């Protein structure tokens, strides 16, 4: 895909979002921040998928990717809710919102 | 006319981006929370400007309806969460 069309622009935008999300997911240690980064990866994939399905401007976006993206958005929300519940419960038990493996050595991590 | 509406929409987008500087710099959490209301109102304006130019026609207006309906929700969740016991409302605390 090349040229300056709506679909091309947002397809590359999706690729950039995937990169940003991966970086945040690797660097961030607070679980909510990591969750946000993971959702950025997800929406980057959706944007890329939807935009590549809109390569013929007169046809609009391919309905099959659209349906899959809507399904994906709802599942992503459910997964987010599960991670939030896990994080809150974990913080109740440990007073931390960070996994043990992510703690530096002097703070009691492995 | 399509071009004109797109220009106005683009300039509104620029003003949103400028105002987002306040969301990034704070200093208070309420300043940051205003970001949600900001894109609520401006997002609705941009969607209204895009609706006549959109390939899918005026159906895009439904997105604006949903955004306007839910614009206040994040702020409400915020004021409830920062109230005295975490589940009250700021008017009770006054």
């Amino acid at each position: 895909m090349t040229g300056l069309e709506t679909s091309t622009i947002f397809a590359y935008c999706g690729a950039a979002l995937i990169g940003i999300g991966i970086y945040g997911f690797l660097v961030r240690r607070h679980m909510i921040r990591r969750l946000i980064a993971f959702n950025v990866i997800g929406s980057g994939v959706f944007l890329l998928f939807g935009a590549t399905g809109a390569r013929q401007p007169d046809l609009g976006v391919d309905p099959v990717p659209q349906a899959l993206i809507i399904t994906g958005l709802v599942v992503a929300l459910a997964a987010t809710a599960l991670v939030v519940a896990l994080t809150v419960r974990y913080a109740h038990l440990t007073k931390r919102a960070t996994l043990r493996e992510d703690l530096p050595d002097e703070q009691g991590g492995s | 006319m399509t071009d004109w509406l797109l220009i106005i929409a683009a300039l509104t987008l620029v003003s949103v981006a400028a105002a987002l500087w306040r969301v990034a710099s704070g200093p208070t959490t309420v300043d940051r929370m205003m970001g949600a209301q900001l894109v609520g109102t401006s997002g609705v304006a941009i969607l209204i400007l895009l609706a006549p130019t959109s390939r899918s026609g005026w159906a895009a207006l439904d997105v604006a309806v949903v955004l306007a309906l839910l614009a206040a929700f994040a702020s409400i969740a915020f004021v409830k969460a920062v109230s005295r016991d975490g589940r009250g409302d700021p008017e009770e605390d006054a």
Partner: protein
Amino acid sequence: MSLAALFTVVFTSAGLFFFIAGAVGMIRFPDMHSRLHALTKADNLGLGLIVIGVMPQVDRPVTALKLVFIWALALVASAVTAQLLARSAAPPDLCEDG
């Protein structure tokens, strides 16, 4: 340029002016309550003007009704947000029934 087009150009420009004014207020005003004021008042006026401006372009009357409905929803949402955010940040002795 037709009269309808001129109407749209004038009103959407006016709407844009208030959005820019709101953004300037958000950035320049010295305290949080003034900034909240800039955001929830100027932007709503801007939205109203844009709604009026787009009105001549609608395809059928029900779309125009939808536009007014959106503006009303946004006004209510802004008013509620402004009240609640201002209250949650105000020192208790400033509230009249405190």
